[in-house]
């Protein structure tokens, strides 16, 4: 599997450095090299990684952060009918310092962008970002002077959830996709052990994955009856 590597070294950024900070490059699975060095270490590390990742992905604490309409559907996912607790993410945190991931649920306004960046910076590693809804993905239907055309202009986004707004189910699917990718991640197991880079797995595109199945649909239900 291929990975994207982010080095955490250059934390002190120059003034003209652009967000997202940090250098990214595509690399092979770091474990592969280790396997050649020592079969045993490699396996142990793999076990450790997957154990840690399993813990991480099943206890993702969301940051209580909402921008606009999409936030309502996001909250809907938190309440009884959709029950996000099934995925271990019901512990909503009001402080970014206690949260694991942030959902950009809504429109990213130019006036709000520096605030979003500040809140993101206040979250502690490991941290992830889900971009929820067309506005956060690309500006959506708001190609207008006051709106940033996609939050990925300054934040690194892990999962994009399409829709305006996405249904709560779609948000839950996005969360599960994030979990899948966390399972494959390679992060420092400690600040003294091993490689200090963050390796993010390149996950398959959902569009390509489901295309064959989606185009199977030839007959759409008429809206004439419920």
């Amino acid at each position, binding site marked *: 599997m291929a990975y994207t590597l982010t080095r955490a070294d250059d934390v002190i950024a120059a003034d*003209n450095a652009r967000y997202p900070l940090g250098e990214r490059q595509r690399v092979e699975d770091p474990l592969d090299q280790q396997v050649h060095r020592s079969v045993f270490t490699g396996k142990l590390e793999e076990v450790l990684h997957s154990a840690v990742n399993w813990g991480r992905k099943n206890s993702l604490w969301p940051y209580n952060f909402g921008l606009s309409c999409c936030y309502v559907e996001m909250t809907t996912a938190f309440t009884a009918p959709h029950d996000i607790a099934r995925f271990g993410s019901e512990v909503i945190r009001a402080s970014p310092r206690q949260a694991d991931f942030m959902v950009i649920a809504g429109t990213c306004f130019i006036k709000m962008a520096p605030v979003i960046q500040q809140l993101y910076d206040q979250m502690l590693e490991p941290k992830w970002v889900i971009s929820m809804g067309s506005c956060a993905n690309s500006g959506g239907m708001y190609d207008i002077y006051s709106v940033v055309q996609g939050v990925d*202009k300054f934040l690194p986004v892990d999962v994009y959830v399409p829709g305006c707004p996405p249904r709560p189910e779609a948000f839950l699917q996005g969360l599960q996709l994030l979990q899948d990718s966390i399972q494959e991640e390679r992060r420092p197991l400690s600040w003294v052990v091993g490689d200090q880079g963050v390796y993010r797995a390149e996950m398959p595109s959902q569009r390509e994955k489901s295309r064959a199945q989606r185009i199977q649909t030839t007959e759409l239900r008429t809206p004439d009856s419920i």
Partner: protein
Amino acid sequence: MNVATPHDTTANEAQADPVVVALMQRFGEHAFVEQATLIGMPVLWVAREALVEMLSFLRGMPEPFEMLFDLSANDERLRGNRQGLPDSDFTVFYQLLSVSRNRDIMLKVALAESDLEMPSIVSLYPNANWYEREVWDMFGVVFHGHPHLTRILMPPTWIGHPLRKDHSARATEFDPYTLTVEGQDKEQAALKFDPEAWGMRRGNENSEFMFLNLGPNHPSAHGAFRIVLQLEGEEIVDCVPDIGYHHRGAEKMGERQSWHSYIPYTDRVDYTGGVMNNLPYILAVEKLAGITVTDRARTIRVMMAELFRISSHLLFLGTYLQDLGAMSPVFYSFSDRQKSYEVIEAITGFRMHPAWFRIGGVAQDLPKGWDRLMQGFVDWMPKRLHEYERAMMENSIVRERTRNVAAYSTQEALEWGVTGPNLRATGCNYDLRKKRPYSGYENFDFEVPLGGNGDAFDRGQVRIEEMRQSLRIIQQCIDHMPAGDYKADHPLTTPPPRDKMLQHIETLITHFLQVSWGPVLKPNESQQMIEATKGINSYYLTSDGNTMSYRTRIRTPSFPHLQQIPAVMRGGFVPDLIAHLGSIDFVMADVDR
């Protein structure tokens, strides 16, 4: 008095309007020019010098115009059809509402581009404060005598005035957005609160004040809203709300979307109100187009709008109680919302933003079996509402937290432009569905719930009662849904009825033109106010004879509601502020648009 009739408007009965007569008696024949429009109220052009005096006359007359309903402007430099109107590059308009007379009046002032200055009217109507700041921000008109004329919607570092016709509309016309470390620091520094700039002291003889910044992201702020509190201990000495973190340029958007393709943008203004938002816009467009819709379409509209009122009030109820510290009601009320969405989705095909009303009707007919589904919801709700009342509103903690908290009188409410359930919680019986029925509300049997104390408790209680009344209205819709077409047979109905479209090439071409370029509406101005979920919402449309609007002014209820917060909260405590925020029922899109 001159009456300018630039357009083929049906004769305005305004000549007989007693207020206009009174103005004429007081200020003379030549004090104003009357403009004939489809707005449904007298529209008078007055000289800048006479404005303040006229407004004070209207404010002070018997049965006065208590409320400044709206204040905004229009960049007229590119407007082609304005025959008979005074020359104007920028027009500032003032719309007043008299609850006692149940009447409105609009005054317009013409300004030349070289001389964009106006007297401030904050001393007459306190809620002019934010509106004047908005006009400065969006058009660059200076208001002399304004206590704090700064940007309100755009960031303090912004250059230009977005609603001017020469300001770019699209983000893609600017350089792509980038955020640098330096830019981030600069923007954050610009947002820093400076008490001196607001004329606030940093302490008194006894103590040093604390300035607490709440927002723009705070769990009880209901979105991107910021309020800075000046505190002496727990007591709020003063506070300054700061908005604009949710400005999506909805008004500018109206100037480039066709009359038809703008409908989805209205859904997103009060985003918990769904199709309720389509209603004022569609009704205003239909006035311009001269369309009378069928009874069936009107009834479907009322039914769906009321269903969304319930769903919005349920969201209110859950979050209001959560802000008071009750964690579980939100789970109950969202389960009920899910039930309402099941009905909404079956009928419109979408949950939050169906954009389902059309110029001349609705998108499609009700699906077979809708009544059973709707009846299921109507039967489900009463026992739940009863439960909410028993468990929450009769709960002594809820009562202690909300009774006599953040209370204001009817008079104060009107002064600040408060409308809707928040106004009715003060005991003022003013509901547009009764006072000025639109879309067939006169045919329904329902009551207008009123409060008495105007406190945070009454604002909650009134909404529970309103849900019951909405259920009553929906029940009547189920029982008496008229038969007939769901779209009006009119050349401007967009898109035209489908069977008409498929007859021959002519009708197909009309269909094609209407959905690609959009229908063309004759030059005129129209407005429609409705009783939306949060208060009075109105769309004021100016057509220049084009496929899109020349100016779309959206008056939303939440904007004045937030402006009123300092007046209510001075002397209160921080937890009271949270209770008050929960009881206002606002969403930021309804404030910043």
